[in-house]
């Protein structure tokens, strides 16, 4: 029962965070979801038997099933690796934004396919040249780089910016430098 509730709560929190726009929150969502699955895995081995699974010192009737524990250990390592990669991606996005947002032209089309997003950027630039950061935190992920949508983003951008700066603060844990870097890019 306890395990079931724990899994339920973790999944709730995980799904909620995952549906957020910011990559940082989504990452924490995945961390929670990963924990939920780990608890689920440990539960699948049976929670009643808890003695160490050592031949000779414990009979198999009371020994815990070691296999789910090994599975969970592997899963933790993999989740950890991917989480670090997500943080690195976040950092890269922040740097990229900083790099391209502050250049004299601020474009440097990476490929001709970027023309759309470039046009969108140009469309957004004149009115936001003073409030440049407003376009900064725009998420490439949910907004297809079409000019009409991107033009809207300049309106919602300021609101986004506020939430970014306030929510980045209360997470001073491990990812603090990344969060700061991200914030810098968005500044």
């Amino acid at each position, binding site marked *: 029962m306890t395990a079931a509730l724990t899994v339920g709560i973790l999944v709730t929190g995980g799904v909620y965070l995952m549906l957020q726009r910011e990559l940082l929150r989504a990452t924490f969502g995945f961390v929670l979801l990963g924990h*939920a699955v780990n608890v689920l895995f440990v539960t699948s081995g049976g929670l009643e038997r808890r003695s160490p699974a050592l031949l000779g010192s414990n009979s198999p009737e009371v020994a815990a099933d070691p296999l789910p524990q090994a599975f969970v250990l592997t899963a933790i390592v993999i989740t950890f690796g991917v989480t670090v990669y997500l943080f690195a991606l976040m950092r890269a996005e922040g740097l990229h934004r900083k790099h391209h947002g502050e250049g004299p032209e601020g474009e440097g089309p990476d490929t001709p396919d970027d023309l759309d997003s470039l046009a969108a950027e140009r469309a957004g630039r004149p009115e936001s040249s003073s409030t440049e950061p407003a376009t900064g935190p725009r998420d*490439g992920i949910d907004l297809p780089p079409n000019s009409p949508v991107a033009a809207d983003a300049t309106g919602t951008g300021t609101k986004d910016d506020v939430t970014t700066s306030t929510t980045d603060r209360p997470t001073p844990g491990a990812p603090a430098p990344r969060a700061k870097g991200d914030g810098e890019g968005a500044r």
Partner: protein
Amino acid sequence: MTSALIALPIAAPMLAAGGVVAVGGRYRQVCRWVVLGVSAAVLVIAGVMIARTADGSVHAVQVGDWGPGISIAFAIDMFSALMLAVSSLLVLVCYSFAVSAGDDEAEPLFGPLVLILSAGVYGTFITADLFNLFVLIEVMLLPSYALLIMAGSRAKLAAGRIYLLVNLLASTIFLAGLAMLYGSAGTLNLGVLAGAAAENPTIAAAGAVILVAMAAKAAMVPMHGWLPRTYPEASPAVTALFSGLLTKTGAYVIIRVYSVMYEGDQRYVWVIMTGAILTMVIGVLAAVGQDTLRSILAFDMVSQIGYVLLGLALATHAGLAATVFFLVQYAAVKAALLLCAGAVETAYGTGRLSLLGGLGGREKLLAAAYAVAALSLAGLPPMSGFVAKLGLIRAAVLDEQYFPAAMAVIVSLLTLLPLLKIWTGAFAGALPSPLPDTARTRAGLVAPAVVLGVVTIALGIGAQPLLAAAETAADVLSNPTIWAEAVLRG
């Protein structure tokens, strides 16, 4: 001897990747040959295993000498061997293309990443343990995250983000499914689980979670949205590699798990059938609306996954044989198309149809390779796609499933539409503006697509060996006790 052959496709690329990283940038040329050599070696191993499994036998090895059922087992049957062969061929071809396009100079770790990715893919085809499958899929995905955003532009980073989050979610769901499966069945060894889902609805429900996660990775409608938004952003060689390896892996796992664990249970096939038909139709219609080479091909990729699953959903021997044939030839055909698109993009700097045109006269060989692959994909004789689709439709009619058969024919015709759009947009007509004479594809960029084009013609005209092999694979798939016994015997 056989056991070494089974373990090598995983071990060799991993070791080689480590070695290549260790010697690093000093001997780039050597590193290239190592990547090509290892992939060629796996192709040879796959050939040997095809010969050995031609009698319908299954070869298994218990890693680490634990008892059968406890140890992590690897098993190769005809289906695995065929997939191994086609994927190692694609690694060879796509890597050659990447070298010509200069991908491995832009990213020094390109070669090792491809090697690790391929090790994960090969492992997925030969593992007989579901948890090991999860690990190998992660081994495959981790380098793919890096390959996708290589030399990242903003669009690439955004695409990498979607790709990463979707695949991470699918992996987490997969893992949750494994936990439920372990809780209800007490094992994750696919050999022990053979037929378990057909008998026990609880296990079937747990298995369904796994299948849903795999369907997301295979980009089955309605979980396809991520693929067309991410694949076209990668570098051309990487798109071809991903299309040939990653989505096919999802399809492979669905086919393997459904045929072994569920024994092709007729009660649940309607779910797969519905998904397959929706995937076919929605994918092809969406492809028509795209305006760059690779985004058209990416939606088309979604559509073709529907065909692969269609044969599985028939759950007959003929259906499975047709699916195996389709999957093997389609991987090559699709990669050929994407490499053609990649060659155009690399040489002319854009894949946007409105900026292209008249390449047919300028790039005769490339245009020919594209035409062959496109007609094969649409299912015209004498290319391999014709044999594959004919097999699928025949299997559906034999099973008296006329609606799927009709849909397969209609979608096949519709497939011509996006492919013709590329033809008229990029290859036919006049050049949109005078191009500098230097903008021309080099031989190294065209050769990979031509090789795959020749493969599809060869598989179309000389279809008999592959048809026989697909029949053998279907024998094992439709009678999973053979496979399970081999896995448990070791």
